[in-house]
Every structure is written in C-alpha cells, then in structure tokens.
C-alpha cells in the first residue's frame, strides 16, 4: 500500500520535475533565440554601416576623376579573366595608369 502510494507520489514528482526542467529549458532557448536575434540585428546594422562606408569610399563619383587622371594606382587581379590582350577598345584611364602586379 505504502509502496504504491510512494510510487504514485514519486511519479507525480518526477513528472512535475520533468515539466519544470522542460519549461526552464524552453525559457533558456527562447532567451537564446531572442539574444541571437538581437545579435543578428546588431551585426546586420554594423555590416550595413561598414558597407555604406566602403561604398562611399569606393563610389564611382569619388574614384573616377582620379582614375581618369591616373592619380590612383590600380591593383589588377593576379589572374586575368581574359588570357589574350584586349583588341579594342581599352578604357582611357587604364592606358595612362601605372599598375602593380
């Protein structure tokens, strides 16, 4: 009788403990997801700001004058997409711009 009663109590306690554990885990995960969302937002925004800065610095409006005047050095890719030299026409600013390899 006592054994049965004890077992029943034990089962109830076990189920409750499992429920509490699950609830805690659920809360933890929700917190984690929430935190990750926040981190993603922060990173996305940081990325957007950095991208904005790089695009401002490399904007054609800012670079083209200097490139055409040959004031900027262009770093060409190590491996050219075209194996043969271009026949015609070359961009004017590339003709006069010193290049580095």
């Amino acid at each position, binding site marked *: 009788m006592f054994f049965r009663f004890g077992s029943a109590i034990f089962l109830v306690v076990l189920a409750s403990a499992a429920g509490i554990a699950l609830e805690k885990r659920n809360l933890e995960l929700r917190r984690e997801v929430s935190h990750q969302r926040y981190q993603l*937002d922060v990173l996305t925004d940081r990325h*957007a700001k950095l991208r904005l800065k790089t695009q*401002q610095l490399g904007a054609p*409006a800012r670079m083209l004058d200097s490139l055409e005047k040959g004031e900027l050095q262009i770093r060409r890719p190590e491996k050219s997409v075209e194996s043969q030299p271009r026949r015609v*026409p070359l961009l004017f600013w590339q003709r006069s711009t010193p290049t580095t390899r």
Partner: protein
Amino acid sequence: MPIDRRSIHETPARSPRVCVVIGLVLLTWLVLAGRLVQLQWISRPQLSQLADRQRSMIESIPARPGEIVDRHGRLLATTVTMRSLYVVPTRITEPWQFALKVSESLDVDADQLFERITKNRTKRFLWVHRRLDDEQADGIRDLDLPPHSWGFREEYLRRYPQGKFAAHLLGLRDIDGNGRGGLEQSLGSVIRGQDGRRTLVRDARGRVVDVREDVAEAPRHGRTAVLTIDAVVQLYAERELETVMKEWKPKSACAIVIDPRTCDVLAMASRPTFDPNRPVNVPPAAWKNTAISAIYEPGSTFKPFIVAWGLQKGVIAADSSFDCENGSYRMGRRILHDHHSYGRLSLTDVLVKSSNIGMAKIGERLTNKELFAASVRFGFGRKTGISLPGELQGMLRPLKKWNSYSTGSIPMGQEIAVTPLQLISGIAVLAGDGVLRTPRLVSKTVEHIDAIPEDVPATSFRPTVTSPAIERDIGRWLVEGPLVDVVKRGTGTKARLEDYKVFGKTGTAQKPDPATGKYSSQLHVSSFFCGAPANDPRVLVLIVADEPTVGKTHYGGTVAAPAASRLLHKTLLHLRISPGGKPLREARRP
C-alpha cells in the same frame, strides 16, 4: 409542569432595531450581488478589454527596408540604425534645466524645447531629436540627465552613398520611412517589408514583465532591388548633363541611356537635381524627373518614326525621292519652309537634311489616319509603364481633332508632345528588333541584403510588355542608312566617333511663347539621340535640353549632340562593346 403549546409555536417578536439591521445586511448583500452581476456579466466585455489594454501592449517591430543596388551590386540606397531622443514630460521636474542641458549637446533651441516640454506636461512621450549620430548620442549620455525622464529609441535612416547620383530615380524616404518619389515610392511594398509585432505584458506601474511569444510576429525585412542601372554609366550621364547645364544654361535637361535590345535603362539623369541625403532648401523644379515628367514637341527626332511607318505601310520605298520645292511649299492655307532650299531629295536625304517639306509630303501620302496609327504604334500618347511614379503620358490628340495642319505638322514632330523616355523607347524599336518594349529599370528583387545579384534566387520584378511595331528590316535600314548619314554628313556631325559607326538624329523644337501663344524663335528644346554600333546597336543615348540660354543657335546638333556623343563613347568603352557590336568576351568565342 404543563407546557404552554402556544409558546413553542410562536416565535418571539423581533425588535424593530434587529429588523432594520437584518434589512440593511440583506440590502448590502443585494447591492453587492447586483454589482457583481453588473461587473461579471453586463460590463464584462468592456472591462476585460480595458484590463487587457492596461496589462498588455502591442509593440511594432519595424522591418528593415531593403537596399537598392545597381546591376553590378553597387550600393545606391541602404538603411542604417540611428538613435532618436525622446523625453517623458511627466517625469521632468525641472524643465528649464533639462532643456538647457539638452540644447548644449544638440542643435536645438533651449527656449523652444522648454516650451514644448511645458506644453506637454501631461504626456509620457515626446520626441526631442530624431536620428542622432553616435557622437550626439554619446553627448546626451554624458549630460547626466535625470533617470527615467528620457531615452533613446532606435529608428532606421535611409542613406544614399552616391549622393546626388541618380536622385530622381531613387527618390527618398521621409522621416517616417515612407517612400517619396522615385523607386523608393514605386517599390514601396517590396523594399519596405512588413513590420512585425509582439505583445508585452506590463505590471500596474507600466513596467514590462513578460513578452508573449505566442502572439508575436517576426518582421519580414524588405527585399533588395537590383536595378538595370550601371553606376558608372549613370555617372557619365550625370557628368555630361552637368557640362550641358554649365555650357548652355538651359532651364532643365535630361539624359537617358538604354540598351535597345532589351530596353533596359542603363542611366537616367535629370537636372536640376537634389541630394536625397539632405533634402532641404530644394527648389521645386529640382524634384521633377524631366526624363518622364516633362513633355515637349520632339521636332525632327520624330521624323524617323513617320518614315518607318511609311515604309511599313508601303506608301514610300527606300529609293523614293521627294521634290522639296526649293524650300517653300504651300500646304492648304499654310506655307512650309525648310532651313535651306532643296530640290529633289532622296528619302535618305530627307532625313539627313531634316527637310520639313519632304516629311510633309510623306505625311500627305500616309494621311492623318496612318500618322495617328504610327504615333500609337511607337508608344506615344500613353505611359511607357516604367516603374517610376509621376510618369506623364505625353500628348497625342484624338484623331477627330486632327486637321489638314496636322498632316504637315505631325511628320515634323509638332502637334504632339512626348516625354524623353517615350522617345528613346520608340528609337529602341528602330534600333532593336522592331518590337516596342516597356523600359525596364528594376531587373529583379533578391532576399539577402548583401547578396551578389547573380548568385541568389531572384524574383523578376515585372514582366516586360512587348508589342510588335514594325518589321525588323525597316528599322535596320533606317539605322544603318539614313540615321548613320545624319551623323556622317547631316545635322549631327558633332556626334561622329572615330572607332564606332554612330547613328543619330537631331531635334530642335520651337516652344510656344507664353506671351503670344505662337512658336517662339528664341525658346527651343534641343535634343539629340544617337546609338552605336550601327550594325548591331547596343547602346542608345538621348539628351534633351529645355530652353538653352547661352548663344544664339540652339540646334540639337550643337547643344546636345557633343554631350550625347561623349556619353555614348564612354558607355561603349565601359561596356567593352567592340565596333562590331559584340562585347569582347563574346566576340572571342568560336
């Protein structure tokens, strides 16, 4: 002892005081029960709604607007997060001190801020300054303002890294994030995304104690729009327009560059312009995208369409010739003139010399009905359907309002008004495959904010509407024959290029004088369209200058042709189009 039976059955008489007390208790209970019924039953819906409103609060989670990039992924518009400062007037005990401190750090007037705070003393939220930069936000933090009386709220700010570049195409966003003009307006729902929401549970003091995840909805961020614009070509167009504005000082000007095969817009620029990053003190004229929102009589640039339609209908042939009456021709009550006296001119020379009399004679052969049909077939008198707000449909009067004047006027580009975009779309029919297409500005939309346009799943923005206009060979003959000759030996010689075979047509349209209502000899719209390579056109350029004021001659060949030619040349070089028409990479394939 005998029992008195009466005394058993009779209840003792209650005193009136007891009765009153019992009555009062009963009444109290009755009132309480009634109140309970009222609260729990009659007023239940309203009260539970009120409680719900006090307990929970729905907070909107703003969606991040998508970016706008050019065809190579160069950033044209993006969104960054900024902090906006608000105050809680009910919690500010010393408004003047508060206002003074804030004004030291921000560019706000202390008196005005004080007045605003005192006026809104009962409110719990008041914006002070929106979208502060990091330095300003740090400055506010250092002020040591009373706690719980102020705060920052994050808001999105639209930035345009290229500045004035393509301002009319992009448009801008107002302080509340709504698109105003350009693609920001027309792509509103695509770029804006959909705000999310979450329900917050508050305690009696209004502090948030829980977030109800079950009713939360994540925001759907805006998609990134990939344009057909090439930022470098756009820059060339902007620079050439600046040159035209400086050299000729017109009221306004615009430049459009398109690929005639697909009608993809490579560049579209308009002057005067504005900086979407600082849209303050902008003159009203600068808001107008003259490429789509200004109409003008196309003048001689309209002549190729009539010739093409005449060939299509078989009323003229490529080897036809016309007597140009030595420069003066009576047409009904009207006498038409040419700039120079011409005798008999071939069809090619009618276009090369831009003879009004020759064109009027073609008009006579076509009749008004076919002239109207030609205008409709090339897309005039209706919107092109480009994805930009504010496009005008031009002016094509109903056929029943046409008269004998129209037979002479329409073939030389009068009595009809077009937008520059309509005109270049029509030219693309001649230079392309004879099919009229909707000009395309947005090639696709992509999900990811930083994706390379070619590598990600994309959604076509809008299908291109096509309608056959003329036979391909007619357009080809016109482009490779008369229109090449216009540049070689006609009115457009200033557009000649050494490397490429260029075709083009000048237009010098007289404008009506507002004072007299007649055509003015001083006010002109100078325009020029050109394209290359003539044997396989890959690029079309149109430049229109409205009312040039410098100098006496405002011919399209003088004002617009040099700039159009430079723009065409630079674009061809940038796109690496060989004089044969193929891009170099394609040309090398076996």
